[in-house]
């Protein structure tokens, strides 16, 4: 029983390492390396957020405080090392960020984790605002509007590692990411990690089996703060500049949103979320002015129809596949994808036309989108987009109902199967 589990664990972790090692060879462009580096940073941040959110049931609105302050401490540490002669190798600068995250979590967490639930959420929100306000008031530390910049280049690097070329920084980030992901996974397998789940499920009961719930939350908060700080430290090294927005509410909201999208109930969910976050912020934002609107829509739909995030969608389909029933859903998925695409085309054409009308009218009524020309002055174009949306939505709803029937039948069959197996045992 034990060997296959260990073997699949080995396979998963070595492919993860291999993937990160080989990725920059495939995406070797400047943009590719940038995106990959940011993904590593975001993965650590979202996973650390999920220690609170998914594993501990703590809805934090201020996680950027710990990533952000980690960034600031790391950039100051970097500057102290390069200019002031602090004996700190550049490769260890992210650890300075981690220690800062840990220290601030010890400090602020003592206040925040005394309460759970809504009160906890409110306190984190308040603390986030407080730190953001401070960042503008103390320019000596936060660098004011311009932020704090640094230089990660090492003059005579060991084995030619100067951290000048982005790809070298990428590999540093990749190593940190691998270690941090492994460490955070290991955390979920420890007594504290499990008691954190118990506190999430039923804090009252935890008090009656000998554990202090406040202490469990506080310790988990500190662990999360440490990893958040490392993520912030890596970001400081990567960008070589840290501005006040890194502690802002928008950043905190991003962690929450994408951790949720990826799926908070599975360990790997936030990794998917982090990858999406970087794709959205770096690529999607180039693609359309209305990207935040699309993002909001996606989030809304996810919360309504798939509250377990992408990870749970994957796991549910894997379960169906294990029982050999995934094939039956193939046609439905194809139908959903096709009708969804039609709906998306119509909807996004409308959105783009509205955006163009509101923001870019000075450029004239005609604009290009997805290789086609749209004229906001033409009634036909509006009507075409609207009917595309309506037809797509109608078809989508129709296939969705059929899909739900099939899905329900398959789930029932699987449940019956499990029950009958239990009875045999």
């Amino acid at each position, binding site marked *: 029983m034990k060997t296959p589990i260990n073997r699949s664990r080995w396979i998963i972790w070595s492919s993860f390492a291999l993937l990160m090692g080989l990725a920059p060879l495939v995406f070797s462009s400047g943009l590719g390396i940038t995106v990959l580096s940011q993904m590593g940073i975001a993965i650590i941040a979202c996973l650390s957020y999920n220690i609170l959110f998914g594993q501990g049931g703590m809805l934090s609105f201020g996680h950027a405080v710990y990533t952000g302050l980690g960034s600031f401490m790391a950039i100051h540490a970097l500057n102290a090392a390069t200019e002031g002669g602090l004996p700190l190798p550049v490769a260890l600068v992210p650890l300075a960020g981690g220690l800062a995250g840990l220290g601030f979590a010890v400090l602020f967490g003592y206040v925040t984790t005394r309460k759970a639930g809504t009160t906890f959420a409110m306190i984190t929100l308040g603390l986030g605002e407080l730190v953001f306000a401070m960042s503008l008031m103390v320019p000596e530390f936060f660098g004011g509007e311009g932020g704090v910049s640094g230089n990660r280049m090492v003059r005579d690097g060991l084995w030619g590692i100067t951290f000048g070329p982005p790809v070298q920084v990428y590999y540093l980030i990749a190593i940190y990411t691998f270690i941090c992901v492994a460490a955070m996974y290991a955390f979920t397998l420890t007594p504290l990690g499990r008691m954190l789940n118990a506190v999430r499920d039923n804090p*009252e*009961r935890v008090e009656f*089996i*000998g554990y202090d719930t406040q202490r469990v939350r506080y*310790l988990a908060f500190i662990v999360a703060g440490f990893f958040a700080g490392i993520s912030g430290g890596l970001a400081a090294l990567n960008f070589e500049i840290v501005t006040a927005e890194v502690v802002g509410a928008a950043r905190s909201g991003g962690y929450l949103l994408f951790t949720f999208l990826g799926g908070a109930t599975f360990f790997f969910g936030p990794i998917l979320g982090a990858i999406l976050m970087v794709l959205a912020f770096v690529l999607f934002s180039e693609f359309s002015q209305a990207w935040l609107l699309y993002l909001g829509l996606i989030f809304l739909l996810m919360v309504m129809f798939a509250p377990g995030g992408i990870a749970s969608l994957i796991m549910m389909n894997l379960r169906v596949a294990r029982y050999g029933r995934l094939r039956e859903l193939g046609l439905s998925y194809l139908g959903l994808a096709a009708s969804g695409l039609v709906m998306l085309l119509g909807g996004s054409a409308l959105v783009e036309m509205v955006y163009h009308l509101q923001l870019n009218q000075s450029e004239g009524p005609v604009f290009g989108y997805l290789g086609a020309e749209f004229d906001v002055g033409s009634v036909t174009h509006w009507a075409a987009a609207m009917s595309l949306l309506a037809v797509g939505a109608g078809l989508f709803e129709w296939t969705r109902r059929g899909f739900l029937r099939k899905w329900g039948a398959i789930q029932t069959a699987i449940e019956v199967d499990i029950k009958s197996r239990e009875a045999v045992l």
Partner: protein
Amino acid sequence: MNALELKGLRKSFGKTEIIRGIDLVVQAGERVGVIGPNGAGKSTLFNLISGRLLPSSGEVRLNGKRIDGLKPYEINRLGLSRSFQITNIFPKLSVFENLRCSVLWSLGYQYSCWRFLANLDDANQRARQLMQMIHLDRKQDVLAMNLTYAEQRALEIGITIGGGADVILLDEPTAGMSRGETARFIDLIKEVTVGKTLLTVEHDMGVVFGLADKIAVVVYGEVLAFDTPEAVRANARVQEAYLGSSIADLQVAGH
């Protein structure tokens, strides 16, 4: 040796006094059934002993040590554990994880995050043993929320005894069960609490007489009688109180 001792215990909510001066001494190893009509304060009494509520005045001593005013987890660490009337388990954890959580503190693992659960042989063994004791070993990996009601009640007991406390409070362990289930469940409780000091709140008189060496009758926040089942059954004041309440129950049911 007195396992549990209550002295002049009182509790008021606002102006209403729910527990009105309870004195009770439970010897180590005794099995006490706490009975009384609805609203007599039985659950409140358990909440006071286990630290869920703070007494307004009076003392609670566990093995001679004062525990009133301590936090629930501190009381638990001193060797008192309780179950709940409304099932109180960890719904999104498996049966095995539920039980393992309940043994961790008593085995000294505290808040450690430098050891893997899988390597804690004593904790795993104890959790497996508990699982067999409450006859849920076949449901090892089932999430607690997917268990049947009776299984959840059994898990509730398993979590309660997991930490090895020697004073156990069970608050209506058979609440909501059918007669057949209740009978089996009482046997289970007897099995798993051998050698422990047990206090059980029960509604059903029949259940208590089968389970307890001594019975405490609580009526309107006071102990009306505390004696052997036979003596309690013969007690005129108890009969009066119970007769009154059964008439009231009948009236409620008749509406």
